[in-house]
């Protein structure tokens, strides 16, 4: 029981982190119809910028400044890159962000080198907040939860209570109408792209110390963010939240409990074959849930796409 509680907390941290990325991505997608393949790269940039800033000004300034830099960088990418490619259609846009992801990874290696950066949790948060039957919950995790929830509430407030938010919300559903109403849609695009990437930047800043700051960090997270918003339903902020938490918990629980394929198969009435060494499927029989925990979201995504292409909360399929 205690372990379940601990796993719920751990899964929540993972899920909320994922949500910070998927929220930005889904905002960008809803506005511009572009799946931004480079989204996780901005997350990586956030971590690296924050690391460099933290060397000079400390962690907190990093948390403050790095997302701003990332946001501006994102806005510049939209203004001078994506907008240009926009005229050629969606596929080139997608391919552009794909190329951008590669380029950012190379750029990061060029500037910071290839090693993992010693970017650490600030001393003030480096203690155990509380323990549940011997499982310590680090204070930094609690901090991560607060930041993510804070950002979510902030986002919700901006989207539902402010004028800018109204326009964005309207643009989510009726992009053409909003343009017809005389709003500067390119500027909104740039802004949303900037804010979306800045959110990814925040995620990078706070995840860098715990998940590691290295050139492969974008790649590790990259496709799982798409998986999240596809499962949640493209363009749905709530869907992104639900899917993020779902993935966070599924992977955490799958890792925490050794569920064996053999017992599942036996459970549904398939007997274990006798001569396991010669069996073609021996590796399949010996599967355990931690082995495949991080692949589960992909399975989930493929199933959802087959049976409910719009995703859990989505309306649009394209």
């Amino acid at each position, binding site marked *: 029981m205690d372990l379940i509680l601990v796993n719920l907390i*751990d899964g929540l941290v*993972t899920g909320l982190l994922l949500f910070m990325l998927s929220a930005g991505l889904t905002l960008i997608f809803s506005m511009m119809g572009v799946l931004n393949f480079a989204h996780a790269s901005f997350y990586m940039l956030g971590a690296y910028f924050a690391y460099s800033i933290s060397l000079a000004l400390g962690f907190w300034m990093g948390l403050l400044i790095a997302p701003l830099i990332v946001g501006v960088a994102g806005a510049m990418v939209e203004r001078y890159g994506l907008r240009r490619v926009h005229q050629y259609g969606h596929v080139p846009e997608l391919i552009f962000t794909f190329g951008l992801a590669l380029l950012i990874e190379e750029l990061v290696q060029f500037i910071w080198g290839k090693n993992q950066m*010693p970017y650490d949790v600030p001393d003030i948060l480096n203690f*155990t907040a509380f323990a549940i039957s011997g*499982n310590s919950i*680090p204070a930094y995790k609690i901090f991560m939860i607060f930041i993510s929830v804070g950002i979510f509430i902030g986002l919700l407030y901006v989207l539902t209570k402010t004028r800018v938010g109204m326009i964005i919300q309207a643009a989510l559903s009726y992009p053409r109408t909003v343009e017809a109403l005389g709003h500067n849609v390119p500027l909104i695009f740039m802004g949303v792209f900037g804010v979306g990437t800045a959110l990814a930047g925040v995620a990078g800043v706070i995840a860098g110390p715990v998940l590691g700051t*290295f050139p492969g960090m974008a*790649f590790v997270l990259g496709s799982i963010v798409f998986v999240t918003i596809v499962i949640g339903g493209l363009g749905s902020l709530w869907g992104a939240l639900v899917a993020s938490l779902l993935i966070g918990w599924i992977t955490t629980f799958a890792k925490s409990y050794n569920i064996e394929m053999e017992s599942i198969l036996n459970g549904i009435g398939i007997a274990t074959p006798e001569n396991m060494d010669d069996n073609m499927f021996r590796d399949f029989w010996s599967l*355990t849930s931690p082995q495949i925990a*991080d692949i589960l979201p992909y399975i989930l995504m493929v199933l959802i796409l087959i049976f409910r292409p719009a995703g859990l909360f989505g309306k649009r399929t394209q």
Partner: protein
Amino acid sequence: MKNITKIGAVSALSLIIGASAAFAETIKVAFIDPLSGPFASTGTNGLHQFEFAADYMVNQNGGLLGGTQMEVVGFDNKISPKESLIQLQVAIDQGIRYIVQGNSSGVANALTEAVDKHNRRNPDSRVLFLNYAAVDPALTNDKCNFWHFRFDAHADMKMDAVTDSITSDSSIDKVYVIGQDYSFGKAVSAAANKFLGEKSDTIEIVGDELHPIGKVKDFTPYSRKIVASGANAVITGNWGADMLGLGKSIVENGYSGPIYTYYAAGSGITAAFGETGKGAIRLVGEGQVNPPPSDEAAAYYTAFKEKYPDGNVDQTRISNTIGMLAKAIEEAGTADDVVAVANALAGMEYDTIWGGKVMMRESDHQAIQDLHIFEHTNEGIDFPYDNSEYGVRVIKTIPMASADIETTCEMKAPS
């Protein structure tokens, strides 16, 4: 854009045409390892160590065979078996007869097979494959061949040493084994089970699991299980970001025992572990750096740091590889006849500056040497890694470890 195409075409031409002309005024060694991509830091540091060793140990002492210099040429294999085979071909065409490689057993497997096939099919341009770090036991067992020499202890030998260390520590009775879900991770797990089962009745393996390689973002759930299992020792074969992620997560979530591992030093990992890993991370490996075993070793390290201030001597076997190759070439009296050089290498006993001897076993071309258990710490460190204050210090030595370990290798000399 067109221009870059042009550069590509022009350099291709110059390379391909110029290649065959570039015949050996020097003895060339091809270093085929990742120089770009995610594993580039390990590869680049390895290349520097090879270049330094060739320069410091051979060229500054007057070269080989009466003055011929040794040159290490880097080839970027992007840690891809396919690219490795292409670069192998390029190296052979440039007249290079010695191939060194170490990162990834997958690449080593591809290379050793390719070298074997190449040597069979092209007796005029045979090459030797000097493996300095790929530890899949099969390379000197089932998959051994005459052209392959391994200068590192293989995974089972290292696990033998690790389990020696664990069984001699009476405070350890529960061991947790965790690794990446691929051949090496599985081999580590199998070896740990085998050796612990053989050596001790009291030690219980409380967990044994695999996680996807390079895909885990957050190791917390694994750490929870390790803490919950009550383990007082962890064995892992993880490397790179998976090692760092796992190690930090275990310690941060309340585990306080030792973590025995293979690859957790240098390449930024030592610095990134920092205070967190102190006393927890224990490594198995050859080549003592702290405290330095000899003045020679200290001088070597100092000279290396002067040349490469950002580098580490974290693979002392690299200098053994160069030293033994040089000795074999001198003994054979030729660098062109690789069969003679191979025969000189097989069975060679070599005094290494890092203390003790290295013996290249004739039956399987596996080096037998002293293995050490190191501790990640900042106390008593003369030569720290990654320009941090942390480094690894020897806490236990197993002389000529696993010297009698069995091999299934049936060595066939070329006809």
